[in-house]
């Protein structure tokens, strides 16, 4: 140990990096990955898939960020914001990939800030207002379970960039799912009040499950995870009542437009600004 200062010690081995406060030893997950679209991969379909996954992540990140200064505990606030930032990172890479392959050359900001609600392809579950902590936990459990199952398959995608993004995301999503599952068990198997709120949250989330499962075939896997967690939490599996419509074809609730207005406001008021 060369120094009593804890962060100097932790950063040891990265002496060349004097900006340790920004973190050290980072790796670029896309370093060395060939960005050419492989033969046999439909560029339009690939771009659409990237945008869909990015929209889920961006909208979820915004809802998670809303917990900042409002979470029940300081530690949970940081945890939820961290998860949101992981998803934001995934969204950035996915938008960039979409812009590379769809022929428009758009950058990530063009997708995030300069599209209207009808152009977004996220599931409606992601855009619902945060509300109760239990609701956020149930939603996070569902979305992270689905996304993890889907990303695990995408690690074998023929597009090497999407496969690399998925490989990075799998580790993040495994933590998100674990975080949500631990809270789900804690609250479901907690007090009468926490159990009641979890039941209510399940009922609010259940109608939106069908929308997730229509797009990609990971349903059995996700349902098995949810069943395992709900059983451990002493909760019933919610009754499955799908709502008509789908965010995947641009049909959204009234909650998406205000969310995007807040997200996009500064960028639209000051286009081309840098900070």
């Amino acid at each position, binding site marked *: *140990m060369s120094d009593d200062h*804890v*962060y100097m*010690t*932790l*950063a*040891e*081995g990265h002496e060349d990096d004097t900006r340790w*406060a*920004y*973190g*050290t*030893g*980072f790796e670029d997950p896309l370093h060395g990955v060939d960005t050419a679209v492989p033969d046999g991969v439909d560029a339009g379909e690939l771009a659409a898939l990237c945008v869909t996954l990015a929209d889920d992540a961006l909208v979820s990140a915004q809802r998670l960020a809303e917990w900042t200064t409002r979470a029940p*505990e*300081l*530690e949970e606030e*940081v*945890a939820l914001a*961290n998860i949101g930032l992981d998803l934001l990172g995934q969204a950035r890479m996915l938008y960039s990939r979409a812009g590379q392959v769809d022929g428009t050359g758009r950058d990530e900001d063009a997708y995030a800030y300069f599209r209207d609600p009808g152009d977004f392809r996220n599931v409606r579950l992601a855009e619902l207002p945060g509300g109760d902590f239990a609701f956020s936990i149930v939603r996070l459990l569902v979305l992270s379970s689905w996304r993890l199952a889907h990303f695990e398959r995408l690690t074998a995608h023929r597009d090497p960039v999407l496969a690399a993004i998925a490989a990075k995301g799998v580790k993040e999503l495994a*933590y998100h799912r*674990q*975080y949500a599952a*631990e809270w789900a068990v*804690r609250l479901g198997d907690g007090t009468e*009040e926490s159990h009641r709120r979890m039941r209510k949250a399940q009922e609010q989330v259940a109608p939106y499950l069908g929308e997730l499962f229509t797009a990609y075939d990971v349903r059995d896997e996700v349902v098995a995870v949810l069943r395992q967690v709900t059983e451990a939490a002493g909760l019933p599996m919610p009754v499955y009542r799908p709502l008509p419509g789908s965010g995947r074809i641009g049909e959204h609730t009234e909650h998406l437009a205000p969310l995007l207005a807040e997200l996009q406001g500064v960028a639209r008021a000051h286009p081309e600004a840098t900070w």
Partner: protein
Amino acid sequence: MTTEKQNWPLYEVFVRGKRGLNHVHVGSLHAADDRMALTHARDLYTRRNEGVSIWVVRSEHIAASTRDERDPFFEPSADKVYRHPTFYDIPDDVPHI
């Protein structure tokens, strides 16, 4: 909902860095139990890529010397220079001393 809220107990957090040889105290946090303390520590103290291992321990389980004990505890060693191995030449290839 009642506003009565039990405070979560305090935990002390120790993180071992990538090249670090031992866990270093980095701070404290509140958590309901050991498992939650670990996940909180992960989120609060390793998110800038600092750590490869985390220890957490309930603060109340740490026994600490007090200020009053400082002189009898530490003063007697101040003048005993012969306890330091400063009279030896340490070869360059011996690390961690």
